[in-house]
């Protein structure tokens, strides 16, 4: 018995293994949809309940700082990819959009970790998550195409703002806030008690999906592998810095670090595919799904937790 290992991480490993071995294991897309819908609503509702309990303070400056963080990370990624990776403009912009944006699956795992460790976090974090999804995508398109006349900004905004994740997170947040802790009690068995089990199934599926993209590894060479492995901890440090500026608690700091470290594999790919079609979608997806996601799940989150704890326990 390996005490200390969180079993949900093992589900990811199981999926990865099954995928690599090309085993006959696959979850139907309908289940993936169901499971991710439940997770998004649950994360949103958790935030909403807390918001109903203790109204957020200093929200406006936090939101502004979050936007700034998204912009900063995207620019940073873009310049590294251009200067060191020698990627062409379109591909650099597309990959940067992925890394400036966030992964909700990674966030869910971090939330589960905090739950196990009994560490609280600010109820506004799901809101910051939503906000952090957006600037990177818009910036990525701008970096790829410049400010052209033909860009269908309306369509792009619609796609990003009305994407499944934004909608369910914000919807859950509002529902949680409106119904409050007591009103949501009858929904707790599905959304809260099953949360970690559902997350385990989600991670099993993510393992299978990540395995599908492992092949891309070789093709895109050493630079992209290194990039996908080193960006997370670096960006996590920047996230911790911003968390300090916002005065977040330990839990909030760990979550913001995780968000910064994570790379989008749902919203960003869809937006880049339609707005920057000349970028190779396999390049970003391989990096985000096959390297950065596993790294964050297996090593990153515990690492960020340790660093944040160490930093915040320092006498200031």
């Amino acid at each position: 018995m390996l005490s200390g290992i969180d079993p949900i991480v093992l589900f990811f490993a199981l999926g990865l293994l099954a995928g690599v071995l090309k085993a006959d294991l696959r979850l139907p897309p309908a289940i993936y949809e169901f499971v991710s819908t439940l997770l998004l609503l649950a994360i949103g509702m958790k935030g909403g309940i807390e918001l109903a309990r203790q109204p957020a303070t200093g929200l406006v400056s936090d939101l502004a700082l979050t936007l700034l963080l998204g912009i900063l990370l995207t620019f940073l990624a873009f310049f590294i990819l251009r200067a060191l990776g020698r990627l062409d403009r379109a591909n650099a912009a597309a990959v940067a959009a992925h890394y400036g944006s966030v992964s909700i699956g990674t966030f869910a795992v971090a939330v589960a970790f905090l739950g196990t460790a009994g560490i609280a976090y600010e109820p506004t974090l799901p809101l910051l998550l939503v906000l952090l999804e957006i600037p990177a995508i818009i910036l990525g398109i701008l970096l790829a195409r410049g400010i052209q006349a033909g860009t269908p900004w309306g369509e792009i905004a619609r796609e990003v703002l009305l994407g499944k994740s934004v909608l369910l997170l914000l919807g859950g947040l509002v529902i949680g806030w409106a119904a409050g802790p007591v009103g949501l009690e009858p929904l707790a068995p599905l959304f809260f008690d099953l949360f970690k089990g559902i997350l385990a199934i989600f991670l099993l599926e993510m393992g299978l999906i990540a395995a599908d993209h492992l092949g891309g590894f070789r093709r895109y060479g050493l630079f992209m592998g290194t990039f996908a492995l080193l960006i997370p901890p670096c960006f996590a440090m920047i996230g911790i810095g911003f968390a300090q500026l916002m005065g977040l608690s330990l839990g909030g700091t760990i979550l913001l670090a995780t968000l910064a470290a994570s790379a989008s594999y749902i919203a960003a790919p869809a937006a880049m595919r339609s707005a920057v079609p000349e970028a190779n979608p396999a390049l970003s997806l391989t990096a985000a799904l096959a390297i950065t996601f596993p790294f964050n799940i297996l090593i990153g989150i515990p690492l960020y937790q340790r660093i944040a704890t160490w930093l915040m326990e320092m006498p200031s």
Partner: protein
Amino acid sequence: MTGLAQTHRKLLTVITESNLERDLVREIEALGVRGYTISDARGRGDKGLRASHWGHSSNIRVEIVCDTPLAELVLTKLREKYYEHYAIVMWVQDVEVLRPDKFR
């Protein structure tokens, strides 16, 4: 065939990325297509395997029955718009239809 279905039309089949569905439908409707059928598919082509059971890399199969000029128009426009950057394949066949009025 005798009598019944003697009007000739073209059947244009398009296989492409499922994430293009909304855009492509808007496009062909703008070109004047009034009827089409879509089903889900997977496959392999120049752009590699598109068979993941995940939205990102699955295909759709679009069928359009219409007259020759419209088929050519759609073919040209889709080629211009999607050929360079997207996984897409198209082919055209002859079909006989009942009720030619339904197929422009």
